[in-house]
Every structure is written in structure tokens, then in C-alpha cells.
């Protein structure tokens, strides 16, 4: 293996290139086609170049759903999911580091949450909230007026929807925290303790700054998992839909390139999210290395 490139290298490199082309090809096609002129169709060749379909999508609407509103809902849910995933994963990561009774059980719960088919989790959450709704309706008279009056459902974006998304993002968050703490040098903490720092000061001024770039990474991961999530949302989201659910609904009636424009726009949001996260990570690492020097 030390001498020049073997023939196997070129064969494998060609295979890899083909795989990358396979990954990118279809997407490049729709990104291109989303800039079709007003008379453009779903396939090549391009029929002029314009932003017509973006305008059509966001301002004229698709006639069926309010894309702008579900865009905002998905972004809002994604941000809440990202924030909670960061906080809860870091806290749990710290607990696993020290060890606590029942940690094996929590670990297996996290893994199970990851591999049980999403539709089953989604159905379970839907049943849980529905039964809770039924219970409230049955006991409306006995409950305080502000609960009982014209109650329809407890399901919604930030109740059952948020819960469903967290069961998906938290296992990933926890696994990333394991990876982070596996490489963490305990001597930093010991030094802080020897210098008289309280546990909170040690965390706030020593541990957190070191792990912060990874924590931002967890947040980014949480946001994008939530931004794309369909299977878990499908039953548990309640009366209003998120963007991917509306998108899935649109596929059955796809007749013009506005769905491609939607694809380009949602990808744009993802890329902005990565860009921002990378910027923050690089910024934090710069600051860390600067402060690390005397």
C-alpha cells in the first residue's frame, strides 16, 4: 500500500465518484428546474429563466395550503427542538459521566427510541394525547373553568409535536455527548477543583467553554432533524401541519415547478442553518484557542 496508487484505488475512486454523482444528480436537476420560466414544466428542457415559481409559491400560494405559514411553524418548532435538545443532552451527558443508578436503563430507552419505527412512536403519542383529551372532556365540569371551557384538544405543535420530535433528536444528542466526553480531558476539571472552583463554576467556566462547539453542533443536528421530520409528526402534530407534511401532501398533486421551488427554498434554509452553526463553531474555537494562550 505504500508504493504508488494501485489499480484498486482508481476503480474505487471511480465508484465513489459515481456514488457522489448519484447523490447530487437528481437534486441539481430540481434546483435548476425551480428557476424555470412561467411556462416551464416538470421536466427538461428549461423554458426560460425566472423566479416566477418562488413568487408563485410564497405569494400566490399553491391554492391548497398556506406554505408561508407552515414554513414559519416548522422554523419555530425546529428552534425550540434545537434549544431543548442542547440543554437536555448536555445535562444528561454530565449525569452519565458521573454515573447514576438506572443509567443503563436510560441508555437502552434512548437506543430503543431511535430504532422503534417512527410511525409506532407517533401513534403512541397520538393515543396518549387523545386519551388525555377524552379524560379532560369527561371531567370538564369538575375542572377549573379556564381548562374546561371550549377545550378541543391538547395536541399541537408545541405539545405533542414537540414531544414527538424530542424522542427523535435526544438519542442523537446523547450519543454525541458520549463521543464528546469520551475525548474530554478530566484534568481540566481537577485543576479547576483544586483551585477552589465550585461544581457550577467548574462547569460554567471550564467544561462548557470546551464543549460549546459540539453543543452548537447538537443544536444544528436537532434543528435539521426536526425541520425534515415527517414520520413522527404524521400522527402527533395535531390540527396544524409542519412544512414537510404539507410538502408530502403536495407530492400527490404535483403539476408545476412550484414544488421544486419549495425544495430549493427549504434546502436554502438548511444551508443557512449550517452556515450559521459553522460560523458560531469557528468563532467559539477561535476564542477558545485565544483564551487558552497566556
Amino acid at each position: 500500500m505504500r508504493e504508488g496508487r494501485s489499480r484498486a484505488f482508481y476503480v474505487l475512486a471511480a465508484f465513489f465518484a459515481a456514488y457522489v454523482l448519484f447523490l447530487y444528480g437528481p437534486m441539481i436537476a430540481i434546483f435548476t428546474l425551480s428557476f424555470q420560466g412561467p411556462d416551464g414544466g416538470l421536466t427538461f428542457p428549461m423554458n426560460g429563466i425566472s423566479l416566477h415559481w418562488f413568487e408563485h409559491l410564497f405569494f400566490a400560494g399553491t391554492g391548497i395550503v398556506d406554505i408561508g405559514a407552515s414554513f414559519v411553524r416548522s422554523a419555530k418548532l425546529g428552534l425550540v427542538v434545537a434549544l431543548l435538545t442542547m440543554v437536555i443532552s448536555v445535562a444528561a451527558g454530565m449525569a452519565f459521566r458521573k454515573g447514576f443508578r438506572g443509567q443503563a436503563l436510560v441508555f437502552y430507552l434512548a437506543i430503543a427510541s431511535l430504532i422503534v419505527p417512527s410511525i409506532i412512536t407517533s401513534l403512541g403519542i397520538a393515543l396518549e394525547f387523545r386519551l388525555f383529551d377524552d379524560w379532560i372532556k369527561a371531567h370538564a365540569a369538575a375542572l377549573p373553568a379556564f381548562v374546561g371551557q371550549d377545550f378541543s384538544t391538547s395536541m399541537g405543535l408545541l405539545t405533542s409535536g414537540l414531544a414527538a420530535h424530542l424522542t427523535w433528536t435526544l438519542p442523537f444528542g446523547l450519543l454525541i455527548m458520549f463521543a464528546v466526553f469520551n475525548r474530554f480531558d478530566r484534568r481540566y476539571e481537577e485543576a479547576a477543583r483544586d483551585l477552589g472552583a465550585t461544581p457550577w463554576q467548574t462547569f460554567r467556566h471550564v467544561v462548557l467553554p470546551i464543549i460549546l462547539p459540539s453543543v452548537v453542533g447538537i443544536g444544528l443536528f436537532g434543528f435539521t432533524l426536526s425541520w425534515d421530520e415527517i414520520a413522527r409528526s404524521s400522527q402527533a402534530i395535531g390540527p396544524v401541519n409542519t412544512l414537510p407534511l404539507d410538502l408530502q401532501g403536495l407530492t400527490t398533486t404535483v403539476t408545476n415547478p412550484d414544488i421544486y421551488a419549495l425544495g430549493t427554498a427549504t434546502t436554502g434554509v438548511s444551508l443557512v442553518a449550517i452556515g450559521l452553526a459553522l460560523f458560531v463553531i469557528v468563532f467559539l474555537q477561535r476564542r477558545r484557542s485565544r483564551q487558552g494562550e497566556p
Partner: protein
Amino acid sequence: MLETSFRQRAIGWLQAGPMVIIFVGFFLIPLLFVIVVSFWDYNDYEMLPVFSGRGYTDTFESCLDQLPQFCTILRTYGSTLKFCLIVWSLTLVIGFTVAYFLAFHVRSRTWQIGLSLLCTIPFWTSNVIRMIAWIPLLGRNGLVNNALVGLKIVDRPLEWLLFSEFSVVLAFVHLFTFFMVVPIFNSMIRIDKALIEAAYDSGASGFQTLVNVVIPLSKPGIVIGSIFVITIVMGDFITIGVMGGQQIASAGKIIQTRLDAIQFPAAAANAVILLAATMMIIAAMTRLVDIRKEL
């Protein structure tokens, strides 16, 4: 001392608390609800909390009478397992090859990271978008058909390219092969390069080294990737729905259909069956490897 250790334990529980609450409250308890409700009765518009096996008997209705022919549910599971097997073997072969290239033939760390990132960028696009992205390529007037007709390889556009079993498999491979690449790559970079040198020095051919050294040592990654891909395909109703033109049945879609008909106990019964089937496959795979050791 006793007090501090109690304090320490209390802090540990407080830190793990939020995660425990979410997994117990929104994963474990919902799962129990699915099992309980699967034994409830139902009518046309609501579920009735009395014990009944109707969810299950409706699902397997007239299965015994129809033997040796398979009834709908068995045929659906047969078709889902077939997709599982095809997608699993394709993603395994492609994923292993890509991981092998990245781990053993790309020499610098920077290039490894760069090429891996190149493969992850498409994941920032929604899966549904990545599915419909095949329309301009595989549709009746798509690039592939235009090329085939133009080159006079076929007389008229092929119909089976899109909204068919072919396009379902293609989309699965397109979307999920990378879930195979990551864990296998992760196992491969931990293989001590000296072992491979030793195999070469002892006169093993490249192929023999692959079969006797690399594959056995990549087994944990292969199993983890396989579990990911298999559970995704087993429970899938979105890819099969969109890429199959809503015409192909799957284990996941049965649940969705029952839900659309507001038959919660029947949906729950199907969820329990799906869960049991998935868990059996995973149990079989984990017999091969201890996942906890790999993290």
C-alpha cells in the same frame, strides 16, 4: 461524607431527569398505550375501552381459510420483507465499498473529512424533495427516457422507471446508503493498519485480506448500519407512498390506512405486529455483536 454522596446522587438524577421524563412520558408510556389500545374494541367512529382481540382478528381476517394462498396482511409483510432484503443488500454493498475507499484508500485525514462532508450535504435537503427530484430524470418525459428513445434503445418511454417498485428501491438506496457508510467507516478506521501489513507480509492477496481481516473487523459497523437501514425500511410509509405512487402496500402504510379510517385499536394491533417483526430481526442481528462496546 454520606451527605455529600446523597447530594451528588441527587444532582445526577436532576441532570438526567429531563431526558428520563421525555423518554418515559413520550416514548415508553405511548408504547404501552399502543399495546393496551391494540386489545380494545372499536366501532366506526371511536375506540371502546373494553377488552377485545378484534384489532388482531380483523387484521388476520380469513388468513386461515385462504391457505395455502397468502392473505393481504401476509402478502404485505412479504413485500415489505422483500424491499428490506433488496435495499439492505444494495446499501450494504455500496456502503461498504464507499467506506472502504474512504478508510483505506484516502490517505490524508483532511481528504477523508472533506469527502465525507461532500456525502452529507445532500442530507440537508428534505427527504421528500430528494424523492421527487427523480421526476425530471425518470418521468415519462424525463432525461433517461428521452435519452433511451433518442438513442433508439426503446420505442416508447419506459413506464416502470417511476412510481414503481424500481423507483422505491432506488429512492431507499439514494436516501439511506450513507447510514451504512458512517458506522462501517467508523469501524474501519479503528482497524490497526499493522494487521493489514501483517496479512500482506504473510502473502495474503488483497482479496484475502479483505475477506479474512477487514470484513470480520468491520462487523460491528456492518451490524449497526444494517439495523438502521432495516428499521427504516420496515416502518416506512413515506418513501413507499411517494415513490410507489401510493399504489404499493407496506407494513407501515397499513397502520396509516387504519388511522385514516379512525380505527385506532386496529392501527395499534398492526403497530404491535410491526414492532414484534422489527424487534425479531434486530435481536437476530445483535446476537452477532455487542452494540454497547462500540460507542
